[in-house]
């Protein structure tokens, strides 16, 4: 079985701070990590490989330093890694990104046919959840998003059965291979990398493909030019003009503070109290 897992290197958004005056992102010292959602897909791919044998190839579009993210995945047990990197990709939105990644998958598939493509559910910086569906549509693959469990893979009949999280329940879907899957978060736990694997990963020759290597000739489909969306403005959240009102516990009892707070809440929100009373009566 040959599985391609697409990942992205992202800044650890929990550690990002915004400059209070210039409203720009202060990135210094913010570590770059593998998009956490992608790891649920990688782990699932590795489990399939454990079960069926075969190969897991990592694919990433990004700047040269994204090589590190791919190396990390090699240390977890992926077999091979390709970084599609070219200045021409800069500024890509999700549509242009899905085009570049699709080219990468197609090129990888020339070496060995691909059974499943995995992507993360979404990224933690862009947060769009669109790249997976985009690749699936471009490649004409069956799309399985928000998968919570892979129930069965039948390689002989080229079929796969999964559970997919939907609003209000779980869909059990059966489709044919090849397909594209995005895994839901917390559906598995990423395995640890052991020392020999880390040493292997550190020396692993990650393949770097330019746009030509990935078989892309049409510049109008990649980078800024291939992106229908245009970022017109970036700004910080407006700070709340109203200051918090603190209730002092030092000079009054817990009970008084509580009663005082309740008065304040209901005065501020005149209909809330009657809503609560209505609810209590029904």
């Amino acid at each position, binding site marked *: 079985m040959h599985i391609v897992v697409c990942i992205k290197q992202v800044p650890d958004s929990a550690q990002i701070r915004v400059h209070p005056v210039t409203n720009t992102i202060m990135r210094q010292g913010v570590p770059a990590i593998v998009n956490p959602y992608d790891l649920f897909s990688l782990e699932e791919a590795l489990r399939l490989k454990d079960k069926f044998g075969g190969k897991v190839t990592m694919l990433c579009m990004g700047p040269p330093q994204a090589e590190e993210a791919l190396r990390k995945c090699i240390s977890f047990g992926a077999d091979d890694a390709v970084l599609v990197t070219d200045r021409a990709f800069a500024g890509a939105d999700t549509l242009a990104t899905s085009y570049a990644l699709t080219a990468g998958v197609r090129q990888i598939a020339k070496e060995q046919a691909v059974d499943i493509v995995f992507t993360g559910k979404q990224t933690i910086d862009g947060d769009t959840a669109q790249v997976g569906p985009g690749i699936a549509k471009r490649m004409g693959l069956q799309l399985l998003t928000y998968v919570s469990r892979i129930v069965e893979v039948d390689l002989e009949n080229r079929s796969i059965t999964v559970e997919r999280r939907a609003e209000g329940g779980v869909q059990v879907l059966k489709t044919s291979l090849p397909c594209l899957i995005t895994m839901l978060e917390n559906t598995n736990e990423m395995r640890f990398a052991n020392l020999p694997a880390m040493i292997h990963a550190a020396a692993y020759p990650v393949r770097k493909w330019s746009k030509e290597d990935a078989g892309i000739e049409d510049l109008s489909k990649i980078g800024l030019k291939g992106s229908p969306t*245009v970022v017109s403005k970036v700004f910080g959240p407006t700070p709340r003009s109203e200051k918090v009102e603190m209730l002092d516990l030092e000079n009054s009892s817990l009970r008084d503070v509580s009663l005082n707070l309740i008065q304040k809440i209901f005065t501020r*929100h005149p209909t809330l109290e009657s809503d609560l009373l209505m609810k209590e009566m029904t």
Partner: protein
Amino acid sequence: MSQAPTPAAAPAKRPAGRGGRNLELSDELKAYKGVWVFIEHDRGHVHSVSWELIGEARKLADTLGCPVSAILLGGPDEPLEKFAAEAFTFGADKAYIMKDPVLKGYRNEPFTKGMTDLVNKYQPEIFLLGATSMGRDLAGSVATTLLTGLTADCTELKIDPTSKALAATRPTFGGSLYCTIMTLAYRPQMATVRPRVMLMPRADASRTGEITYDTLGMIETQVVTKMLDFIADANSNKINLPYADVIVSGGKGLKNPENFKLVFELARVLGGEVGSTRPCVQAGWVEADRQVGQTGKTVRPKLYIAAGISGAIQHRVGCEAADVIVAINTDVNAPIFEFAHYGIVGNAMQVLPALTQAFAAHLALRSRQVA
């Protein structure tokens, strides 16, 4: 990469578009008119996010002077006309209905085909979908098939006065920044919005509209993916955070899962729901459906009580639309006090029971007075 701006390009002064991009709408695409809303329904119920979007679409359409249309795909035995009538009461002028056995229950392939065909035939200018597991799955597929722009998880939708394009604002970098995104040279302009980000519109029972029917032109044997089963969530423990009027949320400051019962008790007295932060979910203290925030649910309660929650930006973006926010935290410098309306610096394990008691007593007294 993605719609998140590259940090190097973050200053707002950079003019939209560069590198010889085509930012002009072609004459052919200028014919695209109207605002569409995908009406998401499943097993007889419309997801409220669809009505919230109709309300938003109405405002956009009024600015543009064009109609709002509700898009309904479903099986022959599903009450799509009833849903359309409801859409009219919320502000839609028209409904496009596609009924086909193949469209019973959501599957990506037939829905993408149906949606794409409808867009190509009727040419809407703007197309909005809920950022749900269905809406996001469908929006990404349709946008790629149509090769148009899609902006995910928007928090504000407006019409840009100069270009008349949709200006869609969304949080990026975990909510630390916002960016406004436009699709200038492509149509339709697509956007998804999470449940509860937009206000529920008021229904006007006298409003009606016109229904147009179309056919899918696909048979079951052409659809590769089969739905073998749908396992509905058990109703009894269904958590409905986005639509709760009162939410009492607990964070890591509660120290252990046992202390969460203090949160549950206050929520019960207030007839509300229990929310939480991501670390508590990851530690297995509460169910994932209780997570409020960027990677959890967006909530819009009348009252949000946050106990032992620091107020990280990823949590803030999910709860700051609450009418009243009360924070209980031992640390006077916790960021939650930057956006709470009322704050108590104190130990949640003591404050929560006192609040529970005070609320119970107050409500009991008031209901006796009312009765």
